[in-house]
């Protein structure tokens, strides 16, 4: 039986509202793109209505990876949920944590230590590079340029090495904790590792990717003028991050609502915010999004360079002697007081509680503004933890972007939006 649009978007029984209707033109046919398709990267289904090669209409159908993350947040405490937050945008697990801890620390009213802020800033930028490398590489891969993808993936491997050293885990780091981190990091090992990465290997890889793609006729032809979105539309569709900035929306949470080392006086002794430029383009097409991401990686390198030689000493955690955060593992295993404090924190009938209240906290991750709206009733677990997922919001504009383009352009646009289904569906 041929696949029809009605079947693809059948309505909820008790919903009296509108349903998408098949167009009157009889020569249109319907193509089911996904949910399992190499170019969707993850599970997204697009029902495309085609006039020959042209897309007349696109209805995205999502939710295949919905696993109730937000419901789970209501039974896990603020540190336990870190493990789930990692699994949302899995191209940059470490950067997701930063948004979550920022929201939760705002709720608790905790200001992290300068050392912690520097580490979080550096790791957040490494996360951005990690995500952009894959996005840029995969965008080219979908258009048939395989080599750029490998150049990108080689460097991701090095970031895995760095986060493995920091957290003990290559992928889902779960390194951050409310008020600090799971464990302190040895600067003597971390700094040379990061320096080697940002000074030697990464600039070369970015250079290679640029040489391969930036003047490649096929790549330019496939990306220029494809999936354009104007500044006003980008604002109206709530786009953020590189997608919005490629359309000329001058907004970067790091500048507009600064946090960690992007804020002036972050160390309490008048240190200036890290200096970086926000790349902006006006065309808003696939090529612009690619170029913005490349430039953002270079800016991230500049940010890390400013911080890597001035990591302050001192504690990683807020009040390590107090009762606010988990004690260092050496104390847990080495002293009875440490062990007691550890269990006081992790046992279900004890632990730390925030005041009742509601806050919104966000960070500029690679995909855009990743925010958490955390509601607390004063208990150990959040009453509600809403994620503002950039992937979800970016995918909602996809039908508009690909209208009138060909089927092969769908792949290019999808790659440039960097949709992560785990974050899309949560």
């Amino acid at each position, binding site marked *: 039986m041929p696949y029809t649009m009605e079947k693809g*978007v*059948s*309505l*909820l*029984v008790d*919903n009296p*509202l*509108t*349903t*998408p209707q098949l167009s009157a033109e009889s020569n249109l046919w319907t193509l089911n793109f996904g949910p399992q398709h190499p170019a969707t990267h993850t599970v997204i289904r697009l029902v495309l209505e085609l006039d020959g090669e042209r897309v007349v209409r696109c209805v995205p159908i*999502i*939710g295949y990876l*919905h696993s*109730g993350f*937000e*419901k*789970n947040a*209501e*039974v896990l405490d603020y540190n336990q949920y870190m493990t789930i937050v990692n699994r949302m945008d899995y191209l940059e697990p470490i950067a997701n944590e930063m948004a979550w801890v920022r929201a939760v620390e*705002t*709720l608790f*009213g905790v200001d992290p230590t300068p050392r912690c802020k520097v580490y979080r800033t550096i790791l957040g930028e490494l996360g951005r590079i990690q995500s952009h490398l894959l996005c840029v590489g995969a965008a080219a891969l979908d258009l048939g340029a395989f080599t750029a993808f490998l150049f990108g993936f080689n460097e991701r491997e090095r970031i895995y090495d760095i986060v493995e050293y920091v957290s003990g885990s290559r992928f889902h780091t779960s390194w951050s904790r409310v008020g600090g981190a799971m464990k302190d990091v040895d600067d003597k090992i971390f700094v040379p590792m990061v320096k080697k990465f940002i000074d030697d290997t990464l600039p070369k890889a970015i250079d290679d990717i640029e040489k391969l793609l930036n003047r490649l006729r096929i790549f330019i032809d496939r990306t220029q003028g494809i999936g354009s979105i104007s500044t006003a*539309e980008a*604002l*109206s*569709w*709530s*786009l*953020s991050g590189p997608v919005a900035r490629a359309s000329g*929306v*001058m*907004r970067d949470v790091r500048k*507009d*609502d600064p946090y960690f080392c992007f804020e002036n006086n972050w160390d309490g002794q008048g240190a200036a915010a890290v200096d970086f430029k926000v790349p902006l383009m006006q065309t808003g097409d696939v090529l612009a999004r690619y170029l913005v991401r490349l430039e953002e990686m270079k800016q991230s390198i500049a940010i890390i360079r400013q911080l890597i030689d001035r990591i302050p000493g001192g504690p990683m955690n807020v009040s390590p002697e107090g009762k606010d955060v988990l004690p260092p593992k050496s104390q847990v295993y080495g002293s009875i007081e440490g062990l007691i404090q550890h269990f006081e924190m992790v046992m279900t009938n004890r632990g730390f509680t925030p005041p*009742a*209240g*509601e*806050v*919104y906290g966000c960070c500029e991750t690679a995909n855009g*503004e990743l*925010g958490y*709206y955390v*509601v607390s*009733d*004063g208990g150990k677990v959040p*009453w*509600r933890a*809403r994620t*503002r997922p950039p992937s*979800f*919001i970016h*995918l*909602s*504009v996809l039908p508009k972007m690909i209208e009138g383009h060909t089927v092969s352009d769908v792949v290019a646009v999808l790659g440039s939006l960097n949709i992560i289904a785990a974050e899309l*569906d*949560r």
Partner: protein
Amino acid sequence: MTIDHPAAVKLKERFGHLHLKVASFRGQTQIEVPGENLTQVVTFLRDDSTLGYDMLCDVTCVDYLNYPGWDKARFGMVYTFNSVAAGQPRLILRVFLGEAQLAIDSLVPLYAGAEWMEREVFDMFGVRFRGHPDLRRILTWDGFKSHPLRKDYPVTGLGERENYPVLDRDSA
């Protein structure tokens, strides 16, 4: 209680008759708006040249069933706005809805980006959006009956997963 948030000051001037409640926690300002005035207030926020809340950052909902000491309606809508061009601080609007009248004006006519966010709220909480162009479930499947982020829906589910009909080749 602070009212030094520029939007709060302006809204109080313009909509004095609504007696908007302004609350502040950790430096973030929330303004409670009656449901029937939402479109009016948001249009003003968006079109006022000094405020210029041109980006609807997020739409979500919170279920306050059995929330300790709760005296408002059960569902609280959360609208987060960013002001990109004018550079004003972030603003959160709250609308509280009871179970009997679980419907509110859609913001899609004002912000195109509200479409999917409102669909998600409908899916997860069952809030109806008046004037929404395409209000279908988005994350759960079409035949799903519950609204899973409501507090009376258990974390383990109601057996939908276990009891879902299994299709074989003959019956499909």
